[in-house]
Structure formats: structure tokens, C-alpha cells
């Protein structure tokens, strides 16, 4: 079940339904990454299982590492105990991340799907903790297209301004598509001032159908990335 060349994500919850639901949710944006649920006890009660967590780590690990997200206290204790029992070589690439389960899990899954290394997947999950989202979204919060356009036009670099055509706007799935594509380019690209590689930043823009989207790179070599992202947005992300 581990996906070659991709970091795995393990969801540890007291509830089997919560863990399975998180996998289902994140799967929408990360169809091929190894997303594994370790919820409930061995016999299906509320609680956490050392054996399920240990098996889950093995299942999620392709050799590039596993990010573990946990719910309430004893889930963390169980995960930490499971790590204690791993071989040193495996333990080095398993990280328990302190992040909100839903937002952090989705962000980690998208980064894993994009093929990012362990540290980047960890950082993606941690970016969901709050202050970072507020900071990245702050620049554009409440900004109407008219407010943004002149700033974007005045900034150096290359910008493409388009209007969102898909009916549901930049919701989770298309936002993930955009982030995944942006992550394939080394250059820094922004969408309305927000890092195009930050799923939570992009989602928190709350862009709806008809919204103006300014895709910008101040990197001299960023033109190709901007054009690719603009083409994706103009295509409506494959949605009507």
C-alpha cells in the first residue's frame, strides 16, 4: 500500500470512523499517496491501538518516511510508544506532527502527493496550526479584485490575471491541483499575493467563480510556471 517515492501519511484517532474519514477526505486531493488510517482499538472500540499504529507505519512507509497525525492525548502516547519499538533506521523517517488533524492532514497529503520530501510534508502539516495561515492569507483578506489588480500590475515580475470560470470557485480539489502544479516548479509563484505552494493559503483565499486571480512570479525564470498555472485555472480545473 506504500506508494514508491512518496511520503506516507498516517492518521491516528480514537475513532476508527474519524481516521477512515480523514483518509477519505484527503484521498480526494491525493489519489496515489499512501494515506493510512489507524483508528480505534484492535476490536473496534474507542481508543488507540499500538498494533494498528505499528502496522500503519509499516503500511505507509515506502522508505521516504511517514508523517503521523494524532488526535487526543493517548493517541500521541501510543504513537510515541510505537516509534520507540521501531528500528532506528525506520524511526528516523517517522515524524509525529503536532497539527490540526483535518487541515494538517489534507495539507500533508497534498504535499505527499506532489512527491515532496519528508521535511516539506511535515512543514505542510504544521502550516495548518493557525498563525501561518493567518499570515499568508492576511495580505489578501477582504481584498476585492479591484484592490489587488493595481498592486499586482505595479509589482515587478510576470503576472497573468484571469477570472475563475469553474462554478464552485477555488475549492479544495482545484486548490490542490493548483498547489500540486505549482510545486513542480522551483520558482516562487503567488496567487493574489499568497504562496501558490501553500494549500491552506490558497484555500483560505476563498476565491469564488468570477473572482480575479493574479498569478505572479517575481522570479525571472518564473514565466513558464505562471503560464502553466494560468492555463490550469483558465481550463476550469476540468470542472464545468
Amino acid at each position, binding site marked *: 500500500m506504500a506508494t514508491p517515492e512518496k511520503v506516507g501519511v498516517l492518521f491516528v484517532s480514537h475513532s476508527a470512523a474519524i481516521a477512515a474519514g480523514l483518509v477519505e477526505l484527503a484521498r480526494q486531493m491525493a489519489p496515489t499517496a499512501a494515506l493510512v488510517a489507524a483508528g480505534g*482499538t*484492535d476490536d473496534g*472500540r*474507542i*481508543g*488507540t*491501538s*499500538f*498494533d494498528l499504529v505499528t502496522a500503519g507505519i509499516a503500511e505507509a512507509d515506502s522508505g521516504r518516511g511517514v508523517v503521523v497525525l494524532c488526535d*487526543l*492525548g*493517548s493517541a500521541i*502516547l*501510543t504513537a*510515541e*510508544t510505537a516509534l*520507540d519499538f521501531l528500528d532506528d533506521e525506520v524511526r528516523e523517517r517517522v515524524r509525529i506532527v503536532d497539527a490540526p488533524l483535518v487541515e494538517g492532514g489534507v495539507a500533508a497529503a497534498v504535499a505527499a502527493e506532489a512527491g515532496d520530501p519528508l521535511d516539506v510534508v511535515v512543514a505542510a502539516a504544521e502550516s495548518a496550526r493557525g498563525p501561518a495561515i493567518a499570515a499568508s492569507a492576511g495580505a489578501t483578506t477582504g481584498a476585492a479584485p479591484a484592490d489587488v489588480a493595481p498592486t499586482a500590475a505595479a509589482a515587478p515580475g510576470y503576472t497573468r490575471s484571469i477570472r475563475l470560470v469553474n462554478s464552485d470557485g477555488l475549492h479544495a480539489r482545484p486548490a490542490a491541483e493548483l498547489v500540486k502544479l505549482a510545486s513542480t516548479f522551483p520558482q516562487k509563484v503567488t496567487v493574489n499575493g499568497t504562496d501558490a505552494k501553500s494549500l491552506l493559503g490558497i484555500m483560505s483565499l476563498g476565491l469564488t467563480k468570477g473572482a480575479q486571480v493574479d498569478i505572479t512570479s517575481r522570479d525571472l525564470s518564473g514565466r513558464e510556471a505562471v503560464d502553466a498555472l494560468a492555463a490550469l485555472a483558465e481550463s476550469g480545473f476540468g470542472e464545468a
Partner: protein
Amino acid sequence: MGLDITWAVDWVRRSAQVISEHRVELITLDREIGDGDHGENMDRGFQAVLPKLDDLAAGSTPGDVLKLVATTLISTVGGAAGPLYGTAYLKAAAAAGSAVSLDGPAIAAILTAARDGVVARGKAETGDKTMIDALTPAVDAADAAAAAGVDAAGVFAAAADAAEAGALATEPLVARKGRASYLGERSAGHRDPGAESSALLLRAAADAAAASAGA
């Protein structure tokens, strides 16, 4: 006189019995300030150890028994008590090493290792209203008794007395760790179930040691 494999197996059997007898009491304590599963989880864990005692290889040591308890509790308890007690028994097993018989200082050493393991795992401190509030007084009493030249059974008796007093003293405390900490001030007035189960387990150890010494 040291404590050997017979004592260790007897301790586990007495532990399973005392936890089973106090199952409802622990559930009630936990329901007041936690999620209500402590008695049930601990009972399930110790009941799961019992059949495995029959499979112990000839020549097994007290450390082997402690390790068996550790791995079984970690796999079967489910709540925070699984990793916490599992770690305690695992560290105790490591401290016991391959010794065939444990004397007073050795008992003080395994209790210290167990307590340190729980602190490292759960990050709780004295006064947080957790099992540490039973274990740390027990360790201190065991150290003092061992230093005074008391035998192994006497060291456990001192530890059990101190753990019971410590568990009782958690009643007025406000929880700062675990599920009870969500209750804040409302957690005061209730005894911590983890401290209570720790006291029960140490009393079982002392009783087994007294029976062993009298045999």
C-alpha cells in the same frame, strides 16, 4: 531475602485480581473526571497477561515477567494507560535486567526506572493529578527504605503505603495533564484514577512480597 520469579508471577496474578475487583471503582473515578474507560481498559490488559504467564519459559526472570506485562498492556489497554503503564513495566524490566532475585536496592531501582519512564512518556510533573502523584512518593519511600537496609518486601510495603497516601492526596488537585485537564477547576474534588490504579498495583506487589517472605 530477594524477590524471584515466583514473586513476579504472583504479583501479576494479584494485580489482575485487584484490578478486576476495583474495576467499577476505577471506572467511576474515571467517569467523574475522564472518559470512564480506565477500569475496563486495565482489567482487559491484566486479564490478557494471565494466560501468557503459563507460556513463560523455564528459567525466566522477574525482568522477563515485567517485559511480558509491558508488551501485553501496550497492545491491549487502548487508552493512555496502555503506553504509560507499558512504558513503566518496560523500564522496570530493563532495570531488573537478568537478575534472578531482586533485593531492596534493586526494587528501589526498578521503581525509579518505572516512574522515570512514565514521566518521559507523559511529561507529567508532581502535582498534575496523575499516576506520578502516586509513583513519585512511592519511589521516594522505596529509596529511603532501601537506604535504611530494609529488605525487598519492606521496600515494597513502604512504596505501597506512600502510593496510597499519594493517590488520596490527588483529590483536591486540579488536573493539568490528560483528559481530566479539559475539566480545569472542576477536576478538583475527585481522586485521580491513574494514581489509584498505581497504588493498587504497588499494594499487590507488597502483598506478593510479604507472601513470598512468609513462605
